[in-house]
């Protein structure tokens, strides 16, 4: 059933990485991404790659899941690799020179490098969503962006909208399911015909879905008012985000690896 899909692909657990303060996780993830782009040679990249694989080990997330996160980006990886393979012009003689294709050693090197970089990037970001529940992630984003409140950026409102969106994704998916079945029962053909016909067949699904979403929004707003909602000011939270020694230790580790990658750029 559509209902059973996991949102944000969160896999509950009790590892160090699961228990880390999600604000640290976000910041460290960003540092990791920067690290991938700072690394200029295979040595640096290898260190970054080994680091993230070890993190998956610590988080006790199956290798299969890691591969699953890579599935959607396979075309991008192949595309990048092919482009680099054929368009990088190196010194010396090309390894292959056939018709319009010329491949240099540098091309192979660069495309391999890019592939590893993109894969590490996705795997690294997936670790965050695999080990952090969406609601905590929202809390962390609200907390991290809170300095922007001084610039009148609606941080709380943004977080609230994200929470509500997450809350209603399963509800609306279920509803779409129901509407589709109802329209099929009345003879709508949703899976046949060309692209245009299929697109047109979506109209009788989307319109009831939108109408109902607006109704829900209206009722939800009233229910929120009944429960004394009045924006972010003076609001407390059930769950407090708290930094623990683990967070600082992991940060120190990431920074050490980062330092190594930078130094490595100059040495080799």
């Amino acid at each position, binding site marked *: 059933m559509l*209902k059973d899909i996991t949102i944000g692909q969160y896999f509950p657990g009790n590892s160090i990485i699961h228990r880390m303060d999600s604000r640290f996780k976000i910041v460290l993830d960003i540092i990791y991404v920067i690290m991938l782009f700072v690394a200029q040679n295979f040595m640096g990249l290898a260190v970054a790659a080994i680091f993230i694989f070890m993190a998956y080990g610590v988080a006790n997330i199956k290798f299969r899941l890691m591969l699953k996160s890579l599935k959607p980006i396979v075309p991008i990886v192949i595309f990048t690799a092919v482009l680099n393979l054929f368009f990088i012009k190196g010194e010396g003689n090309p390894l292959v020179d056939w018709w319009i294709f010329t491949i240099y050693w540098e091309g192979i090197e660069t495309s391999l490098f890019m592939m590893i970089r993109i894969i590490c990037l996705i795997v690294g970001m997936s670790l965050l969503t695999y080990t952090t*529940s*969406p*609601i905590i992630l929202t809390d962390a984003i609200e907390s991290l962006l809170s300095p922007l409140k001084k610039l009148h950026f609606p941080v709380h409102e943004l977080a609230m909208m994200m*929470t*509500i969106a*997450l*809350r209603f994704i*399963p*509800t609306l998916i*279920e509803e779409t399911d129901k509407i589709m079945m109802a329209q099929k029962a009345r003879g709508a053909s949703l899976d046949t015909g060309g692209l245009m016909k299929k697109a047109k067949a979506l109209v009788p699904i989307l319109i009831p879905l939108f109408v109902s979403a607006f*109704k*829900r929004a209206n*009722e*939800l707003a*009233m*229910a*929120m*008012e*009944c*429960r*004394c*909602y*009045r924006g972010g000011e*003076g*609001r*407390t*939270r*059930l*769950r*407090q985000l708290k930094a623990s020694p683990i967070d600082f230790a992991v940060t120190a580790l990431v920074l050490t690896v980062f330092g190594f990658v930078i130094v490595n750029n100059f040495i080799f």
Partner: protein
Amino acid sequence: MIGDIVNIIETKDLEFEYQTLDDDGKVIESNKVLKGINLTIPKGQFVAVLGHNGCGKSTLAKHFNGILVGSKGKVFVNGIDTADDDKIYDVRQNVGMVFQNPDNQLVATIVEEDVAFALENLGVPPKEIRRRVDEALNTVDMYKYREHSPHQLSGGQKQRIAIAGVIAMEPDCIVLDEPTAMLDPKGRKEVMATIKKLNREKGITIVFITHYMEEAAQAERVIVMDKGRVIMDDEPKKIFSRVEELKAVGLDVPQVTELCYELRKEGIDIPQDIITEQDCMEHILKLFGKDVL
């Protein structure tokens, strides 16, 4: 002034109309939904409100916590005027509200977060939130589901979570607007039992809007509305013995009351004020000259 303390909700000549405006802001159509409602609801009472669709019962309910403010007349909650914007959150904390569709009133993706929502809004300290959330979840018997996400729960369970979210505010009164209308029979029973428990054990005043007569029969007092007016206001036994009047405004009576009514019409000697199955059974057995089993 004693009266002000005993009555949790009091309405005085309350009127409300919906207006349809044209592009220039002129009124082109107005529809009077409430036409002078005078009600007092004492603390601790379990009141059921009955009425045909469009009789104004939901509109009336929304006046009890200041979601709507009457075009004429006043509503007082614990003596506070609901039109007073400065005290609106006192009013809403005192009179909690539960709606029909459980899906559209849960805000958070995790049950306990949702129960905490109102308390977070009120600025209650985190430790106190924790305590009250646990207590509220235990009261509605949903503690073991605290880390579930709402879409994994049944309708009755979701509605109990919505009730927990309201009782966490520790209100004096809960207004429930057809909370059982979208539930299956099992969910209806669960919700009904929870409401009765709150009324009995915590002394919370209940205003229960419904169109199930069997549910209304369980209340202490029944208010019947028709076309924006209160037409009957009495204890359930007396209300349901007025079968013809109820039918005239498009309402039914509980099945057992209907049975006794038909039996009386056939000239059988049976009281008209029977509203529970137990009562009905006893009287019918008596007719056959048998004692209660």
